[in-house]
């Protein structure tokens, strides 16, 4: 899982390069690459609230303060869990690398254990904090892992979109295919449908609010709906700040233990 991308790429969208890209003959592959490789700023911080809603309508809320920084070939991020009370002061740090095939480095600090533990990052199909988002869903899946096909162009919620179908190259992957609606001039995946291994509709991601902050498009409100189990996860982003010069010392064992 690449939390740096969760913070830096999934949520932030640059308008840079749109003119050039618009003049090219766009394929499904190219469109998804443009979404994945978009410019995101040097660093970012925000407060993330995840609301997990089950089929009976019961809600559970997780609040996180997150920081991310792009070092070129390396991205670092750190998350501090603010609620619920029993996970408060837990922190999670991730260093991810552009180098192909190189796994992320990850650590977790559990206040009850009072130590920083290195953990394995080989869990891209795991669900993030009990939500309906897997780590792959949050932006970690590289475009080369799927075959992308431009199905059509159509309007969605008043936005001109490309509709892309993506099929995994890996056999037995948790999704048999996904279909993404990408906004033409913003390179945001505005809607995404996920189909399970039996090719039945599993989940739908809907982006409901986005805005331009500090010159970058930011997704502020999105909902992932598991249609089979009727779960929902609402992701809300607040206090977004970009390019504020986050100190390198933020991404250290010292800060994991100290918290914010």
């Amino acid at each position, binding site marked *: 899982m690449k939390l740096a991308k969760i913070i830096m790429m999934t949520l932030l969208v640059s308008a840079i390069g749109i003119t050039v890209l618009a003049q090219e003959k766009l394929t499904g592959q190219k469109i998804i690459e443009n979404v994945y490789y978009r410019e995101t700023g040097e660093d970012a911080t925000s407060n993330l609230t995840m609301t*997990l809603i*089950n089929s009976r309508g*019961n809600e*559970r*809320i997780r609040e996180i303060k997150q920081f991310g920084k792009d070092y070129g070939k390396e991205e670092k991020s750190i998350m501090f869990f603010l*609620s*619920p*009370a*029993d996970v*408060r002061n837990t922190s999670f740090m991730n*260093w991810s690398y552009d180098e192909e095939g190189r*796994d992320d*480095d990850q*650590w977790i600090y559990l*206040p*009850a*254990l*009072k*130590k*920083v*533990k*290195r*953990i*394995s*990052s*080989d*869990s891209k199909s*795991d*669900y993030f*904090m*009990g*939500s309906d988002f897997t780590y792959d869903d949050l932006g970690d899946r590289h475009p080369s892992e799927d075959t992308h096909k431009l199905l059509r162009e159509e309007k969605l919620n008043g936005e001109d979109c490309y509709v892309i179908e993506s099929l995994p190259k890996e056999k037995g992957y948790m999704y048999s295919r996904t279909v993404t609606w990408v906004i033409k001039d913003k390179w945001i995946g505005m809607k995404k449908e996920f189909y399970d291994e039996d090719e039945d509709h599993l989940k739908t991601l809907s982006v409901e609010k986005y805005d331009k902050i500090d010159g970058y498009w930011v997704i502020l409100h999105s909902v992932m709906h598991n249609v089979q189990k009727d*779960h929902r996860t609402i992701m809300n982003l607040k206090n977004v700040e970009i390019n504020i010069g986050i100190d390198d*010392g933020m991404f*250290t*064992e*010292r800060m994991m233990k*100290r918290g914010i």
Partner: protein
Amino acid sequence: MAAKTIKIIVMLVALVSVNNAQDLFLSGYARTYLGALTTGESEYSIIQNTFDLNLEHSRGNVYFKVNPFLYHYSDKDLELGFRQAYMDLYFDSFDLRIGKQQIVWGKADGVFITDIVSPKDMREFLLPEFSEIRDGVTSLKLNYYSGSSTFEVVWIPVFTPTQMPDDNSIWSVKPDYPLPYSLDYSNADVKDKLSNSEIFAKYSLLSSAIDFELMAAYSWDDDPTFHSEKIINQTTGMVDSVMLKPEHHRLSTLGGSFSTTIGPAVFRGEGAFYNGKHFQSINPLIADGTDEKNYLHYLLGVDYSIGDLKLNGQFIQQAILDYNDYLMNDEFENTVTFLAAMDFLRETLNIELFSYIGLNDGDALIRPKLTYDFVDGFQIMVGANLFIGDEGQFGRFDKNDMVYTKIKYSF
């Protein structure tokens, strides 16, 4: 003493109520813990109510935390105290922490090798939660940071030993001595003076390839050694009993630990060399019944996941160097730990199995546990502690098999 502590806690709570909530952060939990033995007449092994409070305040580069706790038992006096009470001073490249604090070192899970700074509370053997098994110690801790490296020095002015169970506790272990004995605690205390203070130092690195720690300590052995004094029967002229005198000894330790990721697995190791540890003898001819030996304690472990199933295994060996057959401890003591854990229902239900397995005596402690987060911050836990075998560090508690439930509300 108890009345005084209650007053302090009441004052702290009052302070919270009159203070601006933005300044003072309040958190904690209330918990009910009920355990029953599965052997004999299913007596309750523990009925405990806990209240644990954290008060935190920060202003600029200064931070303060106090963590009072209260244990209420059905059959014992109310127990109150401060788990931690310290202040932090943050500077650009170093931090200073002063006060009562829990300090945890090393990479091992559930095993104490280089993790010897904070003494342990063994009144309920290894069963309490990790946050409760370590006692806070009044100390001064300095951390200096340089890139991904950390240098840490801890000075403990007053020695605090391991908390042992009362004599009438089901967790009490009687000295295993071949003759009748009596106890004399006259040498058991380490006097509170500067020359008796303890010092610990650690260098740690957290990097992409590997995390490691190197440590050194000049401390006291938290566990006492039972020295013996032979008592000669005046009539027979033979030794017919002994006087056992528990005493703590100085201990010098060098150690280290590491963890690294190889593919989908995380490998961990930890080891320490203890210079001058005292061991007890079964040979009555040995002067005062003890012998001083150097000692190694090390561990290798791996964390691995199969789908959602998280697995962890550790092999631990304790080795007495220059061994003599008359020592009570084995030359090598081998232990394995195993953990399997899995989350269900969007991480609200967790099923876990943790076990210690003693390879020398074929004994074990098996701890299945089920935890359900009924709503956020409200947790119900049911579990069991099963001791297998007749002897060894786990088998000796064979009659203490128990089932338990804990209900915890966090705020």
